[in-house]
């Protein structure tokens, strides 16, 4: 057992002292195995700084998919979306904007789980950039809520490395929105934002960059962001928006930019009984 593994195991067991020992080890063993495989497969990725990885219950709590969670159907659904993302970003690794037709569509959920699905693949890494500056959905993922993020970077004085953070999943990183909240639209229009993405694109050419944004019909920020990116995934919440709203969103984004539509929060029929372990 390597030192890294030992350290990981120690940390995890420390965080879950209340849990029965056997189950904890059982669950983490799989996680560790996958981690090991990942490390073996690609040298570059190996260098990624992995902090304490999240355990299964934490993943479920944070609504992250993983290999061994109970609800396998959702994992499959995200794997399928992942395939489409691969096809879209094959050429130049341009960032993919994920936006919703209207608010409360579970946009962040879709973004982070596409990223997580990509991270399930040993040969890929993903980076989520949280551009929902006013109403970030990623705060609960960070151990320290006031970590540096996009806004801080745009204001200057810090390097990229300072804002790229691990989320407790192998091969997945996050750039949070940042602490400060004033006049965010101004930040979005600044050329530094463009520069940020150019830099990200160049520096991490193997990473698939996903940008989480506010919903397109509710926020001016989303419209600015939609202009900035050439690949967009549109999230349509189940039974919440009308045809007109969707058409409007498509018009604002530009039809040719949209990779595809994801219908989110479709209620489950009996698949809960069928696909869960």
């Amino acid at each position, binding site marked *: 057992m390597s030192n890294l593994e030992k350290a990981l195991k120690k940390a995890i067991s420390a965080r879950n002292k209340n849990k029965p020992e056997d189950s904890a080890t059982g669950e983490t063993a799989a996680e560790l195995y996958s981690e090991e495989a990942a490390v073996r497969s690609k040298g570059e990725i190996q260098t990624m700084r992995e902090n304490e990885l999240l355990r299964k219950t934490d993943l479920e709590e944070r609504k992250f998919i993983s290999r061994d969670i109970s609800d396998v159907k959702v994992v499959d659904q995200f794997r*399928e979306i992942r395939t489409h993302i691969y096809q879209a970003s094959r050429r130049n690794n341009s960032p993919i904007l994920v936006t919703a037709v209207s608010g409360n569509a579970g946009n962040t959920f879709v973004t982070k789980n596409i990223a997580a699905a990509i991270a399930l693949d040993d040969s890929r890494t993903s980076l989520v950039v949280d551009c929902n500056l006013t109403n970030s959905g990623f705060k609960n993922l960070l151990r320290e809520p006031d970590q540096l993020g996009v806004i801080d970077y745009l204001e200057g004085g810090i390097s990229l490395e300072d804002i790229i953070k691990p989320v407790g999943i192998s091969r997945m990183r996050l750039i949070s929105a940042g602490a400060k909240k004033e006049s965010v639209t101004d930040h979005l229009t600044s050329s530094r934002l463009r520069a940020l993405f150019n830099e990200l694109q160049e520096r991490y050419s193997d990473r698939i960059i996903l940008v989480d944004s506010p919903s397109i019909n509710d926020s001016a920020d989303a419209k600015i962001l939609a202009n900035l990116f050439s690949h967009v995934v549109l999230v*349509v919440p189940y039974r919440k928006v*009308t045809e007109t709203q969707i058409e409007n969103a498509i018009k604002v984004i530009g*039809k040719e930019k949209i990779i595809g539509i*994801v219908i989110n929060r479709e*209620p*489950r*029929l009996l698949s*809960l009984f069928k696909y869960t372990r």
Partner: protein
Amino acid sequence: MSYENFATVVKDALNYRKLILFVFVLCSSAGVAVGLYWPKYYTSEATIFIEEENILGPLMQGAAVQTDVVDRAKLAREIVYGRDILLQILEEGGWLEEKPSPLQQEQLLESMRSRLVIKNASMNLLRFSYKDIDAERSYTTLKRVVDMFVSESLATKLDESRSAFEFIDKQVKEYHQKLKLAEDELKKFRSGNVDIRSGSMQEITTRIQELQTRVTTIEQELREERIKKQTLLAQLSGEAETAAGLSRAEEYRKRIIELQSQLDTLLLNYHDTYPDVVRVRNQIQDLKNALKREESDKKNNSSGNTIVIEGVEVDERIQASPVYQQLRTDLYATNSLIQTLASRLTDAKKSLEIQAELGRRTHELQATLAELERDYQVNSDIYQDFLRRREAARVSMNVDLEQKGLNLRIDEPPYLPSSTSGLGLTHFLAGGFALGLLLPIGILFGVLQIDPRIRNASQLNQFTDIPIIGMVNEFYAESEIKSIKNSYISTFLLGLLTVVAVLVVALIFK
């Protein structure tokens, strides 16, 4: 409905399971509550075989046209739903013991009418049914209704046959009167015109024909005689002239010619102065003078000794001619014949006129007679007919009186109903359950039809060709899955529990 729509509805149903459960509980409870409080009706039934035919029908067959009677149930309702009968039934059933107000009484009647149903079961079967919350009362009331209907019908029938008899009797009397009148008139006419016998007209015709022949014959004869007379007269006048012309002038000329030749002979031997010659010459002169005189006499017609017969002057001198005498005899005979014929003709014409007049009168009288006889015959026929019908009606009436011609009988008598009829508790329970399930699902369907919000890929595909790269379900942690599963199961169990509870309640309070 596409599978997708169906799946959407089921998904929505699972989503709104609590609401659906609530509606289900509500509907089932309402079903059992209404079912328990719904009055239970006992229906008693009876069928009556009826061969009702208007008694006037067969009696008046051919003589009058009957209206068709089809809807027996309607007729029966008219009898039974009548105020008198229903009131009687209400009274006997004890409904009127509490002395209800007229309004309440009216309501009672109306409710009775609605509960008492009379239908045509088949051509000749009438079905009576009556429902009541009390089985016993249902039976007794229906029995009473049926009995009253039968007796009322019989009474009506008797009434009908009696009125039919009375009607025909009246007709008989009327026609009897008419017949008598016709008879009297005929008698009077006959006694007033004895000479009018059947066949007299023929005799008159023969006689007229004879007379006409006779008149024609006489006229012919008369014409002939008149022509004969004309001829005779013409002959007579011609003969007279001839005779008159010949007699003197001819004699004179003959004599003159003789004397001339004598003179010529004498002159051969003698001179003019010879006495003989002179004498002959004188004689000739005398004769010539006499001839001259004669001719002038003739011219003046003033001989005086002429007689005129039939406008023809006849000289006395020619009357002696035998031909003339003969002609005159013929003329007299012809004249007398014409006289006779003329008087005979007048007689014949007179009697012809008399006969023609007689014939005309006979014609009129015979027409009148024929009319009177026809009247009499018609009246007599109808009278005879009515007499027969009256006897038939009398028999019918007697049959009805003794109720032997009964064509109304209770085919299936009323019975005491043992089970309730109509909507029962089970219906309401089933209805409640069905409504509890179908109402929310129906509403979900309706909402799906009119809700413009996008639910599935096919709805999206209808207006955009952007590919749908994924459908994502809500992500549940293991604990959440458990709780959701439990929620499904508990909802289902609660539904089952509701069904059981409702059934138990139904059984207890039944």
